[in-house]
């Protein structure tokens, strides 16, 4: 009955339109689901980007370009316009102005908050386009879009309020790849130019553009090695490279890097290689094959020596920048820990633990190899791209947790390819007619799609025109199992998103005994206090993790922030935190510090506090001042990191320790003073502070702000001044007096 009703809508021209509308509505629903699943909680982070966007909106583009920010990295300042990727801010600024032109009074904050979910919808669409280029099956693209929309690996960086470069960069990444595939397929300069355009946008948006810069040349290189050089590749690559490089050089932060730094050399090399190959092809068409072979051999040798020698020479002479530390750490995971502690101290730069793959990708991770395998079945140029991409991204995602993000798109695509070929095989209502001589494969149900079988007629068993599934039971069982997997995947994604990726770092939520939600909002409490009740130019010293937040929420100048461009300055703060008060006071006076902010989780059991990060401060400071700060001194003789009675003298005298535990024990009855993070009992007598005084402590003690005392009015040093205030007797200093001398005027 329904068949007859639906018949006219599924066949012919109307059928195509119906399917088009269906596909469109499915895509819109996927985008809506992608956006909706990112709205569990909303906290803007990182604040620097928001602050920069506000600056852009209020001061205009040219001022933003020339922005020198004197409220960060005091007293150095930061040439912000030249040291950031402006794509994100410019995007939200453009949206803001467009909406304003339509007289929709939207706050720039709302745009910033909703930018990442909005772009995740676009990413789903881009994934659909990209996958459609890979497969002839119409379901693959939709599946890939759905996976991309809800995969936790991508949600982790694109929940509402996560206003980071990745928010738009993943969309640009996938879309650039789509345009690249399109260009390669068609050999079209237009698509190549479009690809270059989006590549330029990507460069303006995220430092991860280097991934594209290396992946596309690698794809071309592999194709050339496979003997698949063709004018299509030549045209698309040369268009992309020349236009894309020019576009990328327009970003001040990138500047001349594309022709000077080693990370970009592969693109340049492949560009040169293509010229050579093109030239060789041209020669081959005019020269007889025997001479050609000798010619080629000599030519290749010459080019290789010249190119390699040139590269070495340029690297040694410094024209090409040597490999950066961050780059080395991609190959040797232990490198950063030894040489650049500042990189290793960031949790998202750690190597990925294997459960993370299941956590972030769940069912996709085991469909992924199957999808890649299917790509080998019809190894056209675009399938080679998928293979190259998956190998490269798999490696990098294992090196750094953060690069899981670049792996996610290709996993979604490959998994969708695998799943769609499964579904296409098992979901067809029609059973193939039993052939007269049924092959053994046919009865067992080979999951090979009929079209592919038709193409590859090398094997005899494949020569049969229709291969399919015969029994309804196997169809039903496989399809229902797959449906169950997919449903579980959706459940998993929702659970992960709501529990793991939507808990903002600034606000901690917990449950009260009666089940109501209790929100611990100490960060914002303290930042708001700083913003309202301190001088407008009061300098705040804190560890760099909180720099952006202080700059944005408290609107006060900071010494260091999350843009860790100056290691020495960070080490200075580390030294101030890890040294004795007298040493720190000198540093703080030199840097005009007014307030010091520390994060202390001891009362609440909040483990991400400064005492737990303290060793990194020590290590980074030790890297610059190995004589003055020594990591060993913070460990007991038995090699323990202790904060209780058994802590080392250096630990107990460090400014960080003193500030964290100052006055803490007065909260508890005697003998019960406990640090709930480290789970240890603290001595009853807390540390005393001479050079700083407690100015504000948030409700749950997470943020403690100390005011740096001014110089003593009577010219005493702070230790004796506060000892006098406490009413201690002045220690008699026995001065050696010389013999009395008669004063003669």
């Amino acid at each position, binding site marked *: 009955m329904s068949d007859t009703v639906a018949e006219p809508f599924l066949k012919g021209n109307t059928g195509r339109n119906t399917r088009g509308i269906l596909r469109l509505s499915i895509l819109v629903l996927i985008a809506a689901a992608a956006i909706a699943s990112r709205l569990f909680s909303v906290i*803007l982070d990182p604040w620097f980007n928001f602050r920069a966007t506000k600056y852009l909106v209020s001061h205009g583009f040219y001022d933003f370009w020339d922005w020198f920010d004197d409220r960060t990295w005091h007293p150095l300042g930061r040439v912000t316009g030249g040291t950031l990727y402006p794509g994100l801010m410019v995007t939200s600024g453009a949206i803001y102005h467009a909406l304003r032109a339509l007289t*929709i009074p939207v706050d720039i904050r709302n745009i910033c908050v909703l930018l990442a979910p909005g772009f995740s919808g676009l990413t789903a669409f881009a994934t659909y386009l990209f996958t459609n280029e890979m497969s002839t099956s119409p379901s693959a693209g939709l599946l890939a879009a759905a996976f991309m929309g809800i995969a936790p690996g991508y949600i982790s960086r694109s929940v509402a309020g996560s206003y980071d470069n990745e928010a738009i960069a993943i969309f640009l990444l996938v879309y650039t790849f789509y345009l690249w595939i399109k260009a390669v397929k068609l050999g079209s300069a237009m698509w190549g130019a479009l690809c270059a355009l989006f590549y330029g946008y990507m460069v303006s948006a995220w430092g991860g553009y280097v991934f594209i810069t290396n992946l596309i040349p690698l794809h071309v290189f592999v194709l050339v090695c496979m003997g698949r050089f063709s004018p299509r590749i030549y045209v698309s690559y040369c268009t992309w490279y020349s236009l894309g490089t020019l576009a990328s050089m327009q970003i001040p932060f990138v500047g001349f890097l594309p022709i000077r730094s080693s990370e970009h050399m592969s693109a340049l090399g492949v560009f040169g290689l293509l010229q050579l190959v093109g030239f060789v092809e041209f020669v081959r068409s005019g020269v007889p094959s025997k001479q050609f072979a000798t010619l080629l051999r000599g030519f290749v040798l010459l080019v290789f020596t010249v190119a390699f020698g040139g590269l070495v020479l340029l690297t040694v002479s410094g024209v090409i920048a040597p490999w950066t530390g961050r780059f080395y750490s991609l190959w040797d995971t232990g490198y950063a820990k030894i040489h650049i502690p500042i990189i290793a101290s960031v949790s998202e730069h750690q190597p990925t633990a294997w459960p993370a793959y299941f956590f972030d990708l769940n069912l996709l991770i085991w469909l992924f190899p199957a999808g890649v395998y299917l790509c080998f079945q019809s190894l056209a140029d675009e399938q080679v791209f998928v293979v190259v991409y998956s190998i490269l991204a798999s490696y990098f995602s294992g090196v750094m947790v953060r690069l899981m993000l670049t792996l996610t798109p290709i996993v979604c695509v490959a998994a969708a390819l695998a799943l769609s070929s499964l579904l296409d095989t098992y979901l067809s209502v029609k059973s193939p007619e039993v052939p007269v001589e049924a092959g053994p494969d046919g009865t067992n149900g080979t999951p090979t799609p009929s079209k592919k079988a038709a193409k590859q007629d090398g094997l005899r068993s494949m020569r049969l025109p229709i291969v399919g599934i015969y029994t309804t039971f196997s169809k039903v069982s496989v399809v229902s199992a797959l449906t169950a997997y997919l449903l579980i995947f959706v459940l998993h994604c929702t659970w992960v998103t709501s529990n793991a990726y939507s808990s903002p770092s600034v606000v901690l939520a917990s449950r009260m005994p009666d089940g109501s939600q209790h929100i611990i909002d100490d960060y*914002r*409490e303290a930042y708001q206090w700083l913003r309202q009740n301190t001088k407008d130019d009061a300098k705040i010293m804190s560890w760099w993790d909180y720099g952006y937040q202080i700059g944005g*929420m408290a609107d006060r100048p900071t010494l260091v922030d999350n843009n860790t461009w100056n290691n020495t300055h960070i080490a200075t703060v580390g030294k101030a935190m890890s040294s004795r008060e007298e040493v720190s006071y000198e540093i703080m006076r030199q840097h005009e510090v007014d307030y010091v902010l520390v994060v202390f989780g001891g009362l609440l059991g909040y483990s991400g506090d400064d005492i737990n990060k303290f060793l990194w401060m020590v290590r980074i400071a030790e890297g610059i001042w190995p004589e003055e700060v020594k990591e060993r001194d913070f460990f007991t003789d038995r090699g323990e990191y202790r904060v209780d009675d058994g802590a080392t003298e250096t630990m107990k005298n460090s400014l960080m320790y003193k500030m964290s535990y100052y*006055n803490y024990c007065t909260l508890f009855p005697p003998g019960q003073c406990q640090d709930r993070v480290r789970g240890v009992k603290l001595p009853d007598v807390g540390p005393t502070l001479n050079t700083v005084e407690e100015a*504000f402590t*948030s*409700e749950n003690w997470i943020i403690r702000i100390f005011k740096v005392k001014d110089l003593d009015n009577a010219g005493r040093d702070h230790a004796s001044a506060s000892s006098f205030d406490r009413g201690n007797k002045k220690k008699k200093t026995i001065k050696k007096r010389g013999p009395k001398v008669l004063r003669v005027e």
Partner: protein
Amino acid sequence: MRPLAIASAVLSFASTALCAEKSNLTTPLTSKLILPSTFKPVQNFQNANLVHIISLEKGYPKESINVVIENIASTAQDEYFLPFTSQQMATIGALEVKDRKNPDGALFQVEAVEFDPESDTQFYRISLPTPLAPKAQQTLGITFSYLSALTPLPATIAQADKQYLVYTFSAYCQSAYVTLKQKTEVKFPSVVVPEYTIIPGTKGEAESPQKQGSKFTYGSFGEVPAGAVEPVKVRYEFTKPLIHVSELERDIEVSHWGGNVAFEERYTMTNRAANLSKQFSRVEWASAQYYNPPTTAVRELKFPLKVGSLDPYFTDVIGNVSTSRFRSNKREANLEIKPRYPVFGGWNYPFRVGWNADLKKYLRKLKTGEGYVLNVPFLEGPKQPEGMEYEHITLRVILPEGAENVQYSTTVPLVSASTSLHRTFMDTTGRTALTLTAINIVDDLRDRELIVTYDYPFLAGFRKPIVIFISTLSLFAAAWGIGSLDVKIKSKRS
């Protein structure tokens, strides 16, 4: 001579321009009533009996003068003048005069007099609705309050210390006329008044003040000439915050389509109480919470909203503040907000609150024509036991696009009123916005009404749907037009 005059004119112009930038504390109330600089009130009246009541129970002094005036001129008089010093004139708020015998009657017309800006004595002119016949008497009830008039002494105290405030006034009530008999009553918030001026009794009068619990009485005094002053200073305990809102912006947005009226209030709040002598101590604060002692810090603000208010929000510049509670049922709608941190003396806490309400409760359509009547509270700020003072209030009533013939009435004394256009949410012409400004308002005037009448033609409501429909249609048409253009270099069939 001429250049000098020009120079002085330029200078005075510059000085007024400078003054305009400061807060209103330095600029007196503007007035259209300009009198010659030699102005002195004509001695047409005398005060037969006067009771001056000063209430110090809240965070601002509230004074009321109940006076029996008698016309001693030979003709009927209708202008009674009330003197103030320039300093008082700048901070006086909500001066209202009523007939004591007829408390439900309309408020008398009151106007600040502008004559000589250099003089320390300024006047308010009270216009009696009916001229007072010779020898006749009338009882006036004059109420007003001063902003920022209480100063803590000592100016800095420890976190748990008690706060003492100082208030200076005159035991003889200010008057431009001879007063035959008067007394001044001071109501304190508690009996703890460590310091006060003692006026020795003379000529059979008892020594002032007489104490009666927390009420002190100066007087009564006999005949006092016009303009006589007897300064009195009192210092009393008041361990509560002095909440001062230097700027309140209140928006009321009426939507006929949505059937909704949206309120939003933006407060620039500061606490004028004694500053902390040492830094804030969380340990002390947390341990004090168990027995809840009186404090000078603002811990909580309670907004009793109109019943039926919904979707409240409380944000500040960083974002949503999670420490708020909203209790709404059939009888009440209480919004209780807690600032992120206790706001001690000298600390600031700007914030914004907003809520929605059903339009039906506030708006009525007139039976005739296309007129509407909107009745909203002028002020819905927090109701605090210690009171609140508002230095500057800007109230904006945003009416639907196309509303015209806007009229308003309110009993709150206004400084200025204007209508303008406010463009938002795809407006073509913009919405009619009525902006009212008031200064020096205290929370006593909290429940005063504002009645706005306006005409809203039936077709004006359809302006936006039509505009959106036409623009979408033209967008599609343009897309179709561009899509059907053939821009290919090669012909399609090649």
